[in-house]
């Protein structure tokens, strides 16, 4: 049995037929051609599949595609259509990522943080990305970039 799901994916309305047991992650990657959410553990531990659902971070491996019906989904592909966001710019300048596999999820978790707390502390930044595992960096350069992006935003304001 297939159901048609309608989502606003990175600002564009997309319709896709899904089986009731298909997870959002597989549908995004296999049927909608959006490959930035990564498959790391398929059980909600690693955060590599993080996407924004109506602006909030979710692990796309833990929700069914049909649950996303009628909702807005943002992946990292949708962030930089008009150039890098200040957060991405800051991550780039800090050489924050090494292998980069966790980066899409990390960027989205930090984007959601900055949306609710434009100038986060180091502790807040760490907490916001605590569900995104990174084995390379020790997190320090990622946290520094998030905090710096917030500080820059405050200076501009």
């Amino acid at each position, binding site marked *: 049995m297939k159901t048609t799901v309608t989502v606003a994916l990175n600002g564009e309305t997309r319709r896709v037929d899904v089986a009731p047991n298909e997870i959002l992650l597989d549908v995004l990657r296999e049927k909608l051609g959006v490959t930035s959410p*990564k498959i790391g553990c398929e059980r909600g531990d*690693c955060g590599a599949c993080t996407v924004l659902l109506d602006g909030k971070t979710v692990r796309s491996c833990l929700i069914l595609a049909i649950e996303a019906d009628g909702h807005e989904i943002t992946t990292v592909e949708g962030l930089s259509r008009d150039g890098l966001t200040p957060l991405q710019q800051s991550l780039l300048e800090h050489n924050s990522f090494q*292998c980069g596999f966790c980066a*899409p999820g990390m960027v989205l978790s930090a984007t959601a943080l900055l949306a609710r707390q434009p100038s986060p502390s180091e502790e807040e930044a*760490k*907490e916001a990305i605590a569900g995104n*595992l990174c084995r390379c960096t*020790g997190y320090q350069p990622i946290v520094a970039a998030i905090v710096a992006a917030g500080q820059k935003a405050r200076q501009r304001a």
Partner: protein
Amino acid sequence: MTPLKFVGTSPRRIDGLEKVTGAATYVDDIPFGPNLLHAEIVESPFAHALIERIDTSAAKKIPGVVCVVTGKEFPYRFGLYMQDRFIFPTDRVRFVGEQVAAVIARDPQTAKRAAKLVKVVYRELEPVLDLEQALRVNAVLVHPDLGNYTRCPWFFPQAGTNIAHRRKTRKGDVEKGFREADAIFEDTYTVPRYAHCAIEPHVIVGLYDLSGRLTLWSASQSPYTQRNVFAQTLAPLGLTHKDIRVVTPYVGGGFGGKAGVSMEIIGAALAIMVKGQPVKVRWSRAQEFYNTYQRQGVIARIKLGAKKDGTITAIEHTLHWDAGGYVEYGANVVNAVGLSATGPYRIPNVKIDSVCVYTNLPPGGPYRGFGYSEFHFGLESHMTGFAQKLGIDPVEFRRRNAIREGDTLAYGAEMNPNGLREAIDRVAAEIGWGKKEVSPDPRKAIGKGFACFWKAPAMPPNAASAAFMKFNEDGSLNVSVSGMEIGQGYLTVMAQIAAEILTVPVEKIRIESPDTDRNAYEWQTVGSHVTWGCGNAVQAAALDVRGKMFAVVERALGFARDTLYLEDEKVKCRARPDFALPLRDFVISGIQTPHGNFIGGPILGSGVFMPEFTSALSDPETSQGGHPNVHYTVGAAAVKLEIDKQTGKMRVLKATLAVDAGKAIHPELVRGQIVGGMVQGLATALYEDIRYDLKGKLLNANFTDYKIPTAMDTPLEIVPIIVEVAQPDGPFGARGIAEHTMIPAAAIVANAVEDAVGLRLKTLPITAEKVALALAGIAYDDVKGAYMGLCFAGKPETYAFCTNAARRSR
């Protein structure tokens, strides 16, 4: 000498933009269209069993199943240093989770469903799950055919036993050394297995096209080595190197786990079975834990002798490694340690035995540190313990015995230039060594721990690197190499080396990920050797390119080539200050002469590097006579740790590590390796804790039960320190540093715990639970030993040192 313009600076990573935008492509992101097939593996439920019969008929009947593959189709052995593995075993299984068959189907769900219908009849054998059992006379043999395996010439397997290799190193006279000593200190240290936990699971897509060409898209650190192993293994089918192509896009973390060939051989074999259609094999997180490589467990017995003044006279270091069911790569870890287990100290009398033992646990293999993290835990714990016994400050004890340039190494070669003393002094100063700190909270104690480290790349003497270069019309440059960008920043460093020589800025240099059809050769990206080895090849290629440019200018314009130099992307001439020819004006289309013709053409260059001074040939009884290692990178580290005396919970207040990079080509990347490696290392010391049941089944093959650090688990402060004592044969003096940054982590924690609360814990990990029990006077291993998940399943009582590991030492 002109000051360096690019080397020693910290430009943006050349892969940075792709990674922050999500543009970076990993193997699993490549589209293969609706024809893509999916494979599911049928796995052994037993640690040790004979395969009596495999019935695939029910699975084959499922609609959507394309074929079912077993060892019958591929009765070929493979392996990097020793061919002890089958693609699918035909006779027996040797660990829980080993691949026995594969189902290829139209979609993953069908493959999964059908795999459950493959019936395998096993005859269970006694599994060999601990070292004592493996080494017993008349032990059950994991590999009865050991004597017949093809292997590299520096391995010495003992047929009729479970010993896959023994590296013996002998220097001086160790008995005499102990007689000369005023004090002798002996103890045993135990390190369990660990998992790499790269966030990207292993994945490979194979396409054996209708013309008979085999292409593999592989998440690998080793494109050329994979092609070589695939070609060797599949040679009976008529495949040659020319017919096989390995493409390796970005890799989502390696740490050694994606070196060599593990699960990838399955992808290569399955592709052959479904000619014309691509097939994907993607490991689950659980398979990632039990069927790639694990870091090997080790039990290390150390005996040190020293004079009253702290001069070490002799070391006897015996290491028994739990190497798992297959050691085709892991035995070389054992070998590397057997050459270097003195640590970075000048010791006149040395006896090292490093013994690689087969068990029925998952295969051991390379893991960041390549055995050095494991032996440094024991050795550097022992150094501190011995210093205290001698009444010498542990840092001073190390400084007194620190190895120097020109010292004779355990295997007879000379030590390279190094900044070990500087590293020791700077780390001691940074951590405030000698200053006892007291927590304002009476329930908490603060301790400091110190350790030195060293490591050499373990590579065969003919491990080569190569580079090609070509210019584009705008004077931008393409560099072609086959090292892997596994996060360390290798591509950026290669660009900096090329930039320095050719004056082309880093942002005008493009380096693509490897494709064995097109890119220049690289042995593998392991051992922290690519900055050095491939860096030398890139340097040679850049010099080749520069020479060719000067030759064109000389031919076209008549300026002597020894008067020419490069500056700001222009050829200039010392004899003609007004002359400045932009590279973009001639690197493709040449230089026009007054006659209207053009001289030159596209500028291309190449460079190679091979460590021609190395040799693995030596006396098997002593390891004397060869030159197995190119050089060592050294350093020191320290930690300040706070312990809650009631709960055992530990918090890293500060960690610092100094590494001698020779020359830090990109200092920010070096600091990034120090921070990342330190966090990874501290986790292995404090909470990563692998567990097996009594039948050899891994119990915690996921991130819920095998904890790796989150952002909340990082030390409050990490201070990276870069020491630069140039490596004479390195590019701009550089040597590798990346693996090294996790090597001292476990020892500094053990030493800090001892400093804080007087407990000497000799078995990793040093968990809060273990510390709390020990503080309460209960030896952890007495109550938990059976489930330690080491190589002791069932019989902890056979290890006196193990059950006594958590006694108060003072």
